[in-house]
């Protein structure tokens, strides 16, 4: 029996696995000088934020920031000035806390070395949602998420942000921040993709009972959904067996800038992870 399993294992390893390995990709010697804009106006009353960075030549490194830019966000009856956070260069926060309004269109204006970048975004209506589900992961005593949102719905487009914080749970209190917090994103899009259905395996995030769970639903427009679909196509869905042609992300920014400016209504729910499970299905 063991021999048979070994044989199967060998054959299968030959066919299906061991097929991804580190690659000494050293770039192709080209560079890109465009500015990357990441801006979102939310319906939450807070200091709204716009991030400006540059394209880097190596993946995964902290990108060079864009400092000294002038950033303004306006709506038909309001104007908000943003200033650069001196402790976080490249991060521009609104001078005052404010909440974006649903169905209102916001205009972003960035001036960096007389290079003017603009974009418009309309905030769609926020919606209620069904809270996520999690299950116990094997015999570890930890939890993992099993469902956050349906990946397809032509009418209820959304991005879901799940914030997990177990820094206050006994046994984890003295661990570094990155070992007690996690931020995960999920999406409901009006599209289906093969590389989405057969996406490559993703990192499994486990969290202990007592974890504070915050789930935020960001309502998005169709064009924002198209941007997010392209983003996922280049990230979460890329690198499997069913890739599609690679391409740059679309943008609503002018003047060859990259990134996206959006306005999203936010709905939030929170919970604390409990050992009484809301779902038995899929519990292994």
């Amino acid at each position, binding site marked *: 029996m063991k021999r048979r399993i070994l044989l199967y294992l060998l054959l*299968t390893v030959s066919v299906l696995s061991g097929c991804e390995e580190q690659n000494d990709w050293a770039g192709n010697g080209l560079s890109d000088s465009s500015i990357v804009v990441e801006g979102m106006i939310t319906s939450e009353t807070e200091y709204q934020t716009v991030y400006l960075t540059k394209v880097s030549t190596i993946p995964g490194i902290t990108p060079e920031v864009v400092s000294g830019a002038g950033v303004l966000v306006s709506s038909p009856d309001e104007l908000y000035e943003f200033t650069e956070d001196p402790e976080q260069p490249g991060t521009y926060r609104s001078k005052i806390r404010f909440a974006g309004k649903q169905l209102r269109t916001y205009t972003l204006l960035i001036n960096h070395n007389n290079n003017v970048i603009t974009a418009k975004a309309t905030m769609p209506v926020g919606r209620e949602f069904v809270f996520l589900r999690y299950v116990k992961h094997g015999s570890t005593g930890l939890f993992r998420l099993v469902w956050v949102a349906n990946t397809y719905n032509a009418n209820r487009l959304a991005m879901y942000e799940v914030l997990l914080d177990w820094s206050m749970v006994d046994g984890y209190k003295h661990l570094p*921040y990155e070992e007690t917090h996690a931020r995960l994103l999920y999406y409901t899009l009006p599209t289906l993709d093969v590389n989405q259905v057969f996406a490559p395996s993703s990192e499994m995030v486990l969290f202990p009972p007592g974890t504070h769970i915050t789930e935020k639903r960001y309502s998005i427009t169709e064009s924002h959904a198209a941007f997010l679909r392209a983003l996922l196509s280049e990230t979460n869905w890329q690198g499997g067996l069913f890739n599609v*042609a690679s391409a740059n992300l679309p943008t609503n920014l002018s003047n060859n800038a990259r990134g996206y400016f959006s306005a999203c209504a936010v709905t939030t729910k929170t919970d604390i992870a409990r050992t009484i499970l809301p779902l038995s299905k899929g519990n292994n």
Partner: protein
Amino acid sequence: MKLLFRTIFVTALLLASVGMLHAQHLNQKISVEFNNVPLEEVLRELSRQSGILFSYNAASLPLDRKIVYRASEKNIETILDEILKPLNIARIQREQQVILKPSKAMKEENATAAVQKYTLSGFLRDEKTGEALIGANVYDKSSYTGTTTNAYGFFSITLAEGHYDITFSLLGYAATSLALNLNSNRSLNIKLNETGIDMKAVEIKGGQDEKEITAGNAGEVRLTAAALKRMAGFAGNIDVIRSLQAVPGINTFGDGSSFYYVRGGNNDQNLMLIDEAPIFNPAHLFGFFSALAPDAIKDVRAFKGDFPASYGGRLSSVIDIRARDGNINRPGFSGNLGIYTSDLTVEGPIQKEKSSFILSARKSNLNWLNSEEIFNKSITIDFYDLNAKFNIRINDKNRLFLTGFTGRDEFSRITGSSVNTFGISWNNTTGTIRWNHLFSNRLFSNTTAVFSQYNYYLYISREQDDYWLSSVRNRTLKTDFTFYMNPANTIRAGAEISGNHSNPGNVHFSDEDTQKSAPVIPEYNSMGLSVYLSNDQMIGDRLLLRYGLRLSSWRNTGPATVYFYDAAYQVIDTVTVSKGSYFTPYYRPEPRLSLSWRIGRESTLTAGYTRTAQYLQMLSNSTSPFTSLEVWAPSGPNIRPQTADQFTACFLTRFNGNPVQLSVETFYKKFHNQIDYKDHANMLYNPFIEGELRFGTARSYGVELLLKKSSGKLAGWLGYAYTRILKTMEDLNNGLEFPAIYDRPHSLFTNLTWKAASFVDISASWFYMSGSAYTSPTGFMSFNGYTVPVYGARNNSRLPDYHRMDVSISFRLNKPENRYKHNIVLSFYNLYAHKNPFAFAFNKIMNDKGEFVVPSDLDGSYEVIPTSISVAGLIPALNYTFRF
């Protein structure tokens, strides 16, 4: 050149000896003995002994024909008659010389105005199985006038009244000759004996005589079942596509893929026919296996250029697979037991010599992969195919073939981090009825009715029965006529009408609310009509002219919803077409022309021009080597028919006395109305899918070399191709030309088969291709926790070069004379386990187990590791094959 020299030499010798000839008499007596001596040497010896000079055209006489003859003190005239008459060589004495000519030529020269002609026709079949033999040569030995059998084994040749020595030959079969006096129309049923690899005669004879007939069909490749069996397939299975990969000009995508690209054409520009029925996805397990059970294959013809006018509908290639008819003489079975697949074929006569059947079934043995114990994930991989064929000889003039094929694939996966089982499933179903009818011994017809259906499922959740389904259905009625007017002209004509239905993909959700909100994608209905006329015309004995015209048309039919787009690809109008209405008709003439000029006895120079049109195309922006998205859409208001103009030139030569052939082919191809896709095109479940398309042109060009040795203990070939394919799309890549992803400039192939011992056959293949083009990042940007590649020009880089070696060793377990034949086949795909990446990824991190995964926690930094993804390492296989 050699021929010219030989002629000059003979003539010079003749002139120098003028004065001597008077002294010679044809009635002088000599003694000679020839034992398998070529005719040329016989004439030389007779000339030496008698002093008589012979004059002849070396190209028109069978000078290499072996003579066995003995004469003691016979006069020259008698000796010449006894040697030359069976060879249909006539002689005349003109003053100082004896002129030798083929009898027929002599007859023509001496003939009066009217010469009575008769037709020799019939079928050529395998002696044991009764299978029709395709592409066999039928020719008169003395004049080299001949023809070849068609796809049903039929031949017809019309000759002047007289004595002929007709030879029937086919590679892998013992040639047979028949001397006959053609003084009336004759109908023959000839049977040839296979000289198979299982028999004692281990050397596969190359058919030395065939070379005299075949003028070198540029761009055509032919593989018989015997040839396929000798090649190393995947996992011990005969594999048509993988075998054709070893032909210059045909490239596959890579490991595990059934996609193939011919002379710069896209994958969907290839037409694959099984008994004349189109197969839309000829793959199992995403492409690791071909769709047809190995034992069901009889013959494969692949055209990569110079298509006959009878073929149409695709721009770049036609692979015409003929399934076996079934043994009409005795029942039998054959099969294969393997680790990955098993198959069984049963065949036999229904009524001996009148009708037969063949049933083939294949099933995968891969369910052991469904093991969480081993993989920590559950994978279901399963496929099967069934092939059934009935062959009914109604009478001497009518024959019926019924063919059915169905194949299905299932793949699903559930991972530890998901609750839904995702899956892909596809199935092909075809049915064909063919009716052969002989109107006369010179007019052959075949009428075919075809039904073909292809369904492709993408399961979003098998548990909830949520899936996306696309399909394409085809019904075709066609008739083809072949008129063997005379040895110099073979006229073909035909007509074809087809109805097509295509569902570009709609979803089924079990949840009613979701289903209600889901858009409905309009389906396509269309109709094609084409007619063709062509002629293969021999001009003199050196020039073969093949010319023809195919007229094709296409129109769409209601009910339909048609979206019209503006210059920015936004919908500006929607038109609803009622049932029964026609719209957007297209008409395309497709001229075909090919000129073959025989240089001497061993070489041929061919030049050709082919225009092809394609009205049905697969829309997919996938760069995966696997079958992953299948949307077939017809030409219509937004998609104009694709066309291609191909110019070819080919030089083919055989080295005298050796079974070695060299061909050099070059081509230039211009593609029009080519389809590409906007960035991140939404090709799945999109009502406005046609708005995602971008149009332009493409051009490909290349040189292909093939050195082939077709007989001997060691046989095989060496091929090289240099091919470029470049696209220009107005709205992509800033309108600049860019290479297609399947642009692989250099390809090198070798295939060797070696009869190592009487019971051991070894086959080895080595493949090399330049890396395919891909779009590599010029940088990376951070956005909301993601690391996102930034790209420059389209397809600006190349993946590493591809190479692999396949080896298979077959051990015969039975004695050659046994009826039950069985073998053990040990094969290795990718023997030295070279990893051939088909993609690079720039989005992976390494988890605690050392696996590359996509990061989920986007809070904070993570180290992205560039990775390369390949499909397969070394894949060993052990198969037991049997035949009774």
